[in-house]
């Protein structure tokens, strides 16, 4: 049996100390298999984003284990964490987080260049992704010139640039209208089912339920079902 690319075992995260201590996530165990789309839902403040941050090695966990493609992330140095984010994990954010000083194409090239690819190769890959997402003609524009839906598609292209095994999305449809949101949902779904990635999506968007292989609900930092 192929091990799941993303495994969280009894993971917790607390902030502050003593009386001020707040446990944002407690004892969460979860694994996302290759080709699976897991949707994490729950009210604001339930710990969804904290969980996603720990799964993506953006925030260190204070208890439990997080394993990404077989690698325990608590055993990695700062550079090791950066490398695992660069080569193994793709991120999609609610606010897109594209770099406005760069063109659409340069935004998609960014992870490829960080991974040490030569410019012609990274440009070719970026163009191919943008073409695939219907953004070829928009590649020279800067993000602010695009609609929200287009920006999120660019963000997904950037997340997929280094062909990661794990794709993490935080409220990917939160800033989008119905049509653009549906397009993004389709891309995430394809990414899991056609490309075999482990996709974990944190969202309030009930439309995503129909595309998810599993839906997990969080409340007060723990999984309720």
């Amino acid at each position: 049996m192929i091990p799941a690319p993303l495994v969280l075992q009894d993971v917790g995260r607390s902030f502050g100390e003593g009386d001020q201590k707040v446990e944002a996530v407690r004892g969460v165990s979860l694994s996302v298999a290759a080709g699976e789309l897991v949707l994490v839902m729950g009210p604001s403040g339930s710990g969804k984003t904290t969980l996603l941050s720990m799964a993506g090695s953006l925030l260190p966990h204070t208890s439990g284990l997080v394993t990404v493609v077989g690698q325990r992330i608590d055993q990695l140095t700062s550079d090791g964490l950066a490398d695992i984010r660069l080569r193994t994990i793709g991120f999609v954010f609610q606010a897109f987080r594209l770099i406005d000083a760069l063109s659409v194409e340069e935004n998609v090239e960014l992870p490829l260049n960080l991974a040490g690819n030569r410019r012609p190769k990274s440009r070719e890959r970026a163009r191919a992704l943008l073409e695939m997402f219907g953004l070829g003609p928009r590649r020279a524009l800067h993000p602010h010139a695009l609609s929200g839906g287009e920006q999120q598609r660019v963000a997904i292209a950037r997340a997929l640039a280094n062909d990661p095994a794990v794709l993490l999305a935080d409220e990917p449809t939160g800033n989008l209208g119905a049509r653009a949101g549906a397009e993004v949902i389709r891309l995430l779904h394809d990414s899991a089912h056609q490309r075999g990635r482990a996709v974990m999506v944190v969202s309030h968007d009930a439309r995503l339920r129909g595309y998810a292989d599993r839906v997990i609900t969080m409340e007060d930092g723990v999984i309720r079902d």
Partner: protein
Amino acid sequence: MVLLLLFLGAMYQGLRSESNGYVRERPVSAWVAQDNTNNFLRSSSYLRTWHRDSIAALPGVARVTPMLRLVTTAETPMGAGTLFLIGYPPGAAAAEPHLVAGRQVADSGEIVLDRAFARKYRLVIGDTLRIQRHEYRVTGLSSGTNAVMVQFAFISLADAVALVGFRSIVSFLLVEGIPGVPADSLVARVRRLGGRVNAFTQDQFVANNQAELQAGLLPVVAAVDVFTALVGAMVLALLLYSAVSERREDYAVLKALGARNSTLRSSVLKQALLATAMGSAAGLCTYLALAPLAPRFVPQIALALSPMVVGQALGFALAMALVGAILPIVRLERVYPAEVFRA
């Protein structure tokens, strides 16, 4: 900042070259001064005139030229200025300054002025100025005779003696040896005479003057250079710090995407180096454009830009970039990748 560093360096080099130029260009074997005097620029020296005869009688000595030096105030139509006045026997090539215009002093009542002094007080050949109620007509303009704080002027020895009021005193004796006689042996012979005099070879005397200049000026110039570099580093640090702060979200995104801290550090360092390189190029171009104009506004300034001065300025600029990048890099280290989730 680089412009200021270049200007300071060029001024220092110019000062070194100009203020020691007269001493350096003397076609003599040795200088004789009062005991305990080892330089021309920052010393007093009084010798009795009979020393000249004693030294002239030494074997190997071809000629001895007396020189009387005094610091005095000259009154010009444009105001009073201080002069380093040098009296020597007209026609004595050993003491004559290098001229850029006119002719040497040939008689009493004539004066050769440093060109910077003449420019500062708008004097030209043929004009007159007064020193202690005596009038002197300008016959020539000299170079290599500008010590920035004060400029040299040349009159006849008889006029200088009259100004001082003592007939049997001179300041220095310039000794020319017979061809083939080593300067060292001439110096040794003069020293053996005793009589509270000291002698130096021309090379040694030039070096003494150079050392005297460096001792007086180098620490000041070095201190100004260091402060300039520190101010530059602080300005650069603030600029880059602001840039990092403004782009905090972008840096958080880069970290989230997998950029290593070392990659981001080197990016900030590159920005610091690029800003410094552009500033250096702009400073150098501005210097090259403005330097020829400087003497028009401040005639006594002597600028001499050398590869060493440029190298030193660039060295300070590099130090500015490296020091200036520290604070922004510290700021950058405190950007966390999880900040990408902030609304």
